[in-house]
């Protein structure tokens, strides 16, 4: 048993060598990682813009005074509600397959399809995160802003959003991490991201363990770095807090 284990350990070096060094395969992992990170960043920007728009519409609608309902806002609110319900109510994998094989059935740009799928998915979650943040700021704050003569947008920009931002940052970071890992699902439609490259190298070498463990470590390292950066940002934002 022990000798078997030692033999297994000695073979390990060769297996990892085959999976990473031979034929400059590490370049493929880096390319895949580049696609993964690029896809995440663009999809997150897309998702945040979409999410903020949806969240502002939803909060603006919900915080109207009774008896002064705006009809147009009502319609937009219903559309936003349908969007978040559909996206949050269906599995990510199924959504990606639908984007890849049904909606963009003739597109060869898998990177673009991935971004659209991930971004629209992320938008629904970001919308709920941002909405929670905006709702968490006391109505008295915006009332005070308005009574000091600021317009709706200025009140949002200078009073509500800065306070809300601090509240939503942890959940937003969480959403980034989820999105980053969910990019691996895009490999189902053949986009050449990290998981796809790792699986193909496993297929070529008939040994899936080293590429899978290796790619898992790459995901992990990126997430740890990002978590660290997020911690620094949160501490910097807390400096102005009165304690």
């Amino acid at each position, binding site marked *: 048993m022990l000798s078997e284990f030692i033999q297994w350990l000695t073979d390990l070096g060769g297996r990892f060598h085959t999976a990473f060094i031979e034929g400059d395969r590490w370049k493929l992992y880096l390319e895949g990682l580049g696609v993964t990170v690029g896809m995440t960043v663009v999809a997150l920007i897309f998702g945040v813009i979409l999410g903020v728009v949806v969240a502002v519409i939803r909060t603006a609608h919900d915080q109207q005074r009774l008896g002064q309902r705006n009809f147009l806002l009502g319609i937009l609110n219903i559309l936003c509600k349908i969007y978040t319900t559909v996206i949050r109510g269906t599995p990510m994998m199924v959504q990606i397959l639908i984007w890849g094989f049904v909606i963009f059935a003739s597109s060869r740009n898998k990177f673009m399809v991935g971004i659209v799928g991930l971004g629209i998915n992320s938008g629904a979650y970001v919308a709920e995160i941002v909405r929670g943040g905006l709702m968490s700021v006391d109505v008295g704050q915006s009332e005070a802003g308005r009574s000091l003569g600021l317009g709706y947008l200025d009140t949002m920009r200078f009073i509500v959003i800065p306070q809300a931002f601090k509240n939503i940052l942890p959940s937003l970071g969480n959403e980034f991490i989820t999105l980053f890992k969910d990019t691996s699902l895009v490999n*189902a439609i053949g986009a050449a991201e990290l998981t796809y490259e790792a*699986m193909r190298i496993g297929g070529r*070498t*008939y040994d899936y363990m080293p590429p899978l*463990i290796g790619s898992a*470590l790459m995901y992990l390292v990126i997430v740890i770095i990002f978590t660290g950066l997020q911690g620094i940002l949160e501490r910097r934002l807390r400096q102005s807090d009165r304690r």
Partner: protein
Amino acid sequence: MKNFKKLALMGLTAVMSLSLLAACGGGTQGSANTPADNTETTPVESTTPAGNSETPAAGEFTTVEAGKLHMSTNAAFPPYEMTTDDGGFEGIDVEVAQAIADKLGLELVVDDMAFNAALTAVQTGQSDIAMAGITVTDDRLEVMDFSDSYATGVQVVIVKEDSPIQTIDDLANADMIGCQADTTGYIYCSDTPENGGYGADHVTAYDNGALAVMALVNGQVDAVVIDNAPAQEFVAANPGLKILDTEFAVEDYAIGFAKGNTALKDAVNTALGELIADGTVQSIVDKYITAE
């Protein structure tokens, strides 16, 4: 600084726990069981002749589960293996495996999974045999053993009827070629041009052949390289597609075993030899592949 140390510690712990996990994965060879929900006994009628007494007296072999022969496959590869509407499996590989199991006095259990998973399942001892139209290659022989060949596989190219690609040589001009992930077709095509491939940038791997063909119909790829038998079915099912006249590659299909599982390999080879000799294998092939 303190935080930095904490991070480093976290990373280290993660690495260690991962390698521990991996060690467990490697150590449990031969004892792992396939998940139950993937397992399905086949409703295939036996095609073996009644006189079943000549069970080979080859060395004692053991199977993953006593009395059962687990076959890992990818049942999206007609006519070699496909699912039936009632949840069972059928196809050339399934019936040949059934005939072999009958000879060995075992009950056949089909485990359906992705093609690459079917190959690894047999290597790690989750199944006894792998039959999924598997081609014998030198690389695969390094990590697993193979039986004698029971069928010849031909890799062909499917294109749209009006495609500019009309010969195998034209494939070099294809912007994108679709293949089934990790099949020999994918491995040949994605190799570098110096090695006779077209470069990984020009090849997309799909989870199964049907998806690759759908991508071709939708215009996401210019050509699909796949085995001839399923190609015939796909072309018959999708109007506007055709198969190029020249073959892409000719290969031998065989049954895969875990490396070193010689006892089972010899027993299966003996049974297979008898089935080929008495024409059973040919009649199964003829049943599924009608003359072109």
